[in-house]
């Protein structure tokens, strides 16, 4: 079982990823982002994304009800359905689901983010949280009957409320719950770069310990990405492969060794 994570970047070769996947024999589940699309929608609607930096340096989106509406339009709406359409055109009988559908991804609402504003320390609560469990029965039911799940946020919290969540965390929980052996993560770079401005500085292999070390050297969103990658690699999947989603055959290349392997 492969978990295929497609980032939300606008320059990814989605057609290449999907047509490659049509040739893959193993069952797979797609988890996708849509941040480029959401940001454009938020700008067009004049409802910009609110970002908070917590006291310990992590930045994160402040998800109020309107931001969750935006997720439903961009992630589980437009991006998910155009991806399902593309799958169908490549002979993949996809079923697009948000975490709400059939409670396929359940999570717990964040207790609050501590932020400092003009000198005051404050707890800010929003509609975001951590994925905790996955409805494996529904996923199996679909997979065993020839359907390919294509998952997107929002997920569902302990009070059946729609909440935002981090796709990397969802992939980790999903991979562990369904017993995936491979996680393919497609990004807008050749893989993990020593120096992010030098495409030649690709790191072909990183151990989990090394990943923890690197995590301390970065800040904000990048630090959170690294933490999530480490958690993903600790979820039991034999290999996490981060590779270039912009090339002509992203999946074929990734499965034959391209990009960075975390194991």
């Amino acid at each position: 079982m492969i978990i295929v994570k497609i980032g939300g970047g606008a320059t990814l070769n989605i057609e290449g990823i999907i047509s490659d996947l049509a040739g893959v024999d193993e069952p797979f589940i797609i988890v996708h982002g849509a941040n480029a699309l959401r940001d454009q929608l938020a700008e067009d609607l004049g409802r910009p994304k609110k970002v908070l930096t917590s006291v310990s340096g992590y930045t994160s989106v402040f998800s109020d009800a309107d931001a969750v509406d935006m997720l439903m339009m961009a992630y589980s709406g437009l991006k998910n359905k155009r991806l399902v359409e593309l799958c169908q055109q490549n002979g993949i009988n996809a079923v697009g689901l948000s975490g709400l559908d059939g409670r396929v991804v359940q999570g717990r609402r964040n207790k609050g983010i501590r932020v400092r504003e003009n000198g005051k320390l404050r707890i800010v609560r929003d509609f975001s949280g951590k994925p905790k469990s996955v409805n494996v029965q529904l996923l199996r039911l679909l997979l065993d009957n020839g359907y390919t799940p294509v998952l997107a946020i929002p997920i569902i919290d302990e009070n059946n409320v729609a909440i935002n969540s981090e796709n990397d965390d969802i992939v980790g929980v999903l991979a562990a719950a369904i017993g995936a052996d491979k996680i393919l993560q497609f990004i807008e770079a050749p893989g993990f770069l020593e120096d992010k401005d030098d495409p030649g500085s690709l790191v072909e292999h990183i151990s989990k310990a090394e990943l923890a070390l690197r995590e301390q050297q970065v800040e904000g969103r990048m630090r959170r990405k690294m933490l999530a990658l480490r958690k993903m690699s600790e979820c039991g999947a034999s290999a996490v492969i981060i590779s270039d989603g912009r090339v002509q055959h992203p999946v074929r290349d990734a499965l034959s060794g391209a990009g960075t392997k975390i194991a």
Partner: protein
Amino acid sequence: MSASANLECPICGGEVTLGGDTLQGELIECSDCGTELEVTSIKPFAVAEAPQEEEDWGE
């Protein structure tokens, strides 16, 4: 700005003073027992012990 108010700390019963500029969700320390309190509402003022688990952040 609304007037300031004196409340009772829910942990030790000590006096807690909230200024008129207190924000919803603001974190303050009880001067008697040092517990971190969260201003759970400002109209009317109310405080509760702040959640203690590790730093939480979302997407």
